[in-house]
């Protein structure tokens, strides 16, 4: 019953999106507003139907309806309800359902908010959204159909992959990632709409989608950080980033999106970089699809590999169509995208943005080439080669350091004109803070040039960006006699876009400091301990108290209780575990982390004697790692500040739409 409801909902949704997409160009050509409304109705109906299908699948999971292929594949009666619900995105088919749902939601929302805008931009954007939706429906009907029938109906299923039911972040990272990834379809659809409607020379598509882009970027940023956190908490190797193809797939579009968020300001302010921005946005979308293709098709080997089938060919066809159409449209429109302004002086805010874009693009190509290298090498020379962490680290460190530096210089430089004498005052706090951090890192024993530069520029960027808040608030205190906290709030509220950027910069600095410190000063040791014995790493002493085991509903847990000592006093316990799931012979390591302001004590249980007489643990001192997660939160705060909708939505060119006014009031 549930199965039929869901699969029919997808079938009907596919038919309606196809009809809507077919109708839209005629509606525009003939100027038929009633047809246009039908096209928009297709967008909304699609959302309703995909919501029905998604909820039906979730209901199937929760009610253990093993007659549904997907439930039989990932469900089990022993799995806790939370992990049962989120196994919606635990395997290929369910994740495509979720993708289609997020896409339908974005499409319905963005069309609804812009439905009264005259001109052909929104209709063509809606057309694009419908076409992309249709592709995902085709996947759901064809190679990724979760609603196949299972007969005879099994009484129980194997449950999700053990690694995917072992940590709560499984409920956080994937939805954030989809919200970010899929959200990039919105600005892309409007970019396509702008090109098809001939409105490409105006900045309207950019203004209309600005908040959507910032929000998607925020989700993607949060997803990447949450993914790092998850891998850190779950995988037991004490790291958070390994340049795995799947990690890279989320990072590559993030790089172009970040470049876009900056360069778009140059277009809005100066009318420059129009073609470039169009390329960045279209490129970001292509890269999200490319990333998905790389990770779902099994073309590149990765630890995250999804099960594969013919889906790769569908994605390939879609990428081919998108890539050809995008290149064709962008190049065809390039004549209309001449710059209105030009670079006046060599050292100005514009230059900082240009350099920033250059570095981000170089970064993107570095990661992309590194990820595709195994494929290219095999095609060109017939050899199996892959590039690993050393390549990525070597190539990206100089870029990261340069970007940190720019993040400090940029905000201090004025638009258009050369920097005046006040520049010194704006940079000074940064220089002081940077030098202090450089001294600190040298005192702490850091000898690598990159570590020193990273700390120097991180301090510099932090100082300059903080200084912007202090200066602005001080000016308000003087001018309006406001209290300092009030001045700060009003300052940010009055120019949320600008200060949201500075907040995000501060978040990046915190992440950079955490990454630099943990890669430079990490200490680790493995020890086999009998009860009462201790191990000391980086001045932290841990005593092995006991090993224990317990049976939980869906798994068996073996753990070791380790006591954190301060002299003879126990100041805390840390309990690394191994979880044994019935479907997997290998235990899932479950490290335990004790966080403090200065870093984490990270414990992983490596081995144990059955009788509990000894255990082998890996102890890692991870300096400043918590600051990466704090930085991630600050970045999100920046994104929220920048994307939060308010009454000051940019006026659309057509003021003659009363519904819009009512809606906005």
């Amino acid at each position, binding site marked *: 019953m549930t199965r039929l409801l869901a699969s029919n909902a997808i079938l009907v949704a596919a038919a309606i999106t196809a009809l809507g997409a077919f109708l839209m160009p005629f509606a525009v050509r003939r100027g038929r507003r009633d047809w246009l409304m039908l096209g928009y109705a297709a967008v909304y109906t699609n959302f309703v139907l995909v919501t029905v299908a998604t909820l039906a699948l979730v209901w199937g999971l929760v009610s253990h309806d093993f007659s549904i292929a997907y439930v039989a594949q990932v469900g089990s009666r022993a799995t806790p309800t939370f992990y049962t619900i989120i196994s919606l995105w635990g395997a290929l088919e369910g994740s495509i359902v979720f993708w289609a749902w997020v896409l339908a939601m974005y499409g319905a929302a963005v069309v609804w908010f812009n439905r009264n805008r005259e001109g052909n931009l929104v209709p063509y954007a809606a057309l694009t959204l419908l076409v992309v939706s249709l592709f995902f429906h085709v996947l759901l009907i064809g190679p990724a159909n979760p609603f196949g029938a299972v007969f005879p109906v099994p009484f129980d299923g194997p449950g999700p992959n053990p690694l995917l039911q072992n940590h709560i972040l499984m409920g956080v990272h994937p939805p954030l990632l989809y919200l970010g990834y899929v959200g990039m379809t919105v600005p892309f659809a409007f970019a396509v709409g702008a090109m098809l409607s001939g409105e490409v020379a105006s900045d309207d598509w950019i203004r209309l989608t600005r908040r959507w882009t910032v929000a998607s970027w925020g989700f993607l940023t949060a997803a990447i950080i949450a993914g790092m956190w998850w891998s850190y908490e779950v995988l037991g190797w004490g790291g958070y980033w390994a340049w795995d193809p799947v990690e890279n797939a989320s990072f590559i579009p993030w790089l172009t999106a970040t470049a876009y968020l900056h360069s778009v300001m140059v277009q809005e302010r100066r009318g420059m970089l129009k073609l470039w921005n169009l390329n960045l946005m279209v490129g970001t979308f292509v890269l999200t699809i490319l990333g998905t*293709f790389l990770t779902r*098709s*099994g*073309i*590149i*080997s990765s630890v995250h590999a999804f099960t594969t089938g013919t889906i*790769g*060919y569908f994605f*390939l066809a879609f*990428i*081919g169509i998108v*890539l*050809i*159409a995008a*290149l*064709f*449209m*962008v*190049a*065809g*429109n*390039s*004549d209309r995208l001449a710059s209105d302004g030009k670079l006046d002086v060599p050292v100005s805010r514009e230059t900082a943005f240009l350099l920033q874009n250059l570095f981000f693009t170089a970064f993107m190509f570095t990661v992309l080439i590194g990820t595709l290298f*195994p*494929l*290219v090498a*095999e*095609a060109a020379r017939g050899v*199996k080669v892959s590039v690993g962490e050393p390549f990525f680290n070597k190539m990206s460190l100089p870029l990261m350091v340069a970007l940190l530096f720019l993040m400090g210089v940029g905000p201090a430089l004025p638009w258009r004109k050369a920097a005046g004498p006040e520049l010194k005052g704006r940079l000074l706090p940064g220089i002081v803070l940077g030098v202090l951090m450089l001294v600190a890192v040298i005192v702490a024993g850091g000898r690598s040039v990159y570590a020193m530069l990273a700390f120097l520029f991180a301090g510099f960027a932090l100082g300059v960006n903080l200084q912007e808040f202090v200066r602005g608030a001080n000016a308000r205190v003087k001018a309006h006699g406001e209290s300092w906290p009030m001045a700060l709030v009003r300052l940010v509220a009055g120019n949320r876009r600008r200060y949201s950027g500075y907040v995000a910069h501060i978040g990046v600095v915190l992440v950079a400091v955490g990454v630099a410190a943990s890669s430079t000063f990490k200490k680790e040791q493995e020890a086999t301990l009998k009860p009462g014995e201790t191990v000391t790493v980086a001045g932290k002493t841990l005593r092995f108290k006991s090993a224990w085991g317990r049976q939980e509903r869906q798994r068996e847990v073996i753990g070791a209780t380790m006591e954190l000592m301060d002299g003879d006093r126990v100041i805390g316990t840390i309990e690394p575990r191994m979880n044994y799931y019935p479907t997997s*012979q290998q235990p899932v390591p479950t490290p335990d982390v004790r966080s403090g302001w200065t870093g984490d004590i990270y414990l992983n249980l490596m081995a144990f004697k059955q009788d509990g007489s000894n255990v082998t643990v890996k102890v890692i001192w991870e300096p400043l790692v918590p600051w990466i997660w704090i930085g991630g939160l600050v970045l999100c705060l920046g994104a929220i500040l920048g994307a939060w909708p308010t009454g000051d939505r940019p006026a659309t060119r057509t003021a003659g739409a009363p519904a819009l006014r009512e809606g906005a009031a």
Partner: protein
Amino acid sequence: MNWKRASIAAATAAPVIALFAWGLTRDPNSIPSPLPGREAPTFALAVFAPGQGDLARPVGDTVRLDALRGKVVVLNFWASWCLACRDEHEVLSEVARGYAGKPVQFLGVLYNDVPDKGTAWIAEMGGQSYPSVDDPGARVAIDYGLYGVPETFFLDASGRVAYKYTGPVTAGIVRLKVDSLMAAAQPATPTAPAAAPAEAAGPANKTGSDK
């Protein structure tokens, strides 16, 4: 609309798409071995599990690959911690028994494991018909470029690697390879066409090996 520029730009997508299309036909997890067609790396390893009946060799006996010239050798790398090895265990024992008395030597090589555990595993699995040797320090595994277990190497009578198989083998594959190598070892007769080693050296890759 600049049609010319648009067409040129769109054409640049072709090589990218071609690369991906080609990539889809490849298995990214397969690691081609340069060994097939070459002289097999020699070794001298001590037996820790004797095997049964006619196939048995005493524990502690040293197996030298050089001494096996003239026989087809099936070298199976395995470990007690390897799950996929359980799948092929029965198959290998069974097929090996069928070749008793023929110029074929089946040999298990224990990889990254201790003989005690290996012996216990064999007992748990209900015995193994052919002997297994220990490979301390995985020296021989390294010589053979082992990527994971199980991997099975088929050596021809002249001591060359004819074929490598990744993942659990099936009875059909083992019989096919051993028969063709035995046929090649005899003077060619009209009824038994010799299979060239190179022909048998095509990559066969199956997932399911433990890395």
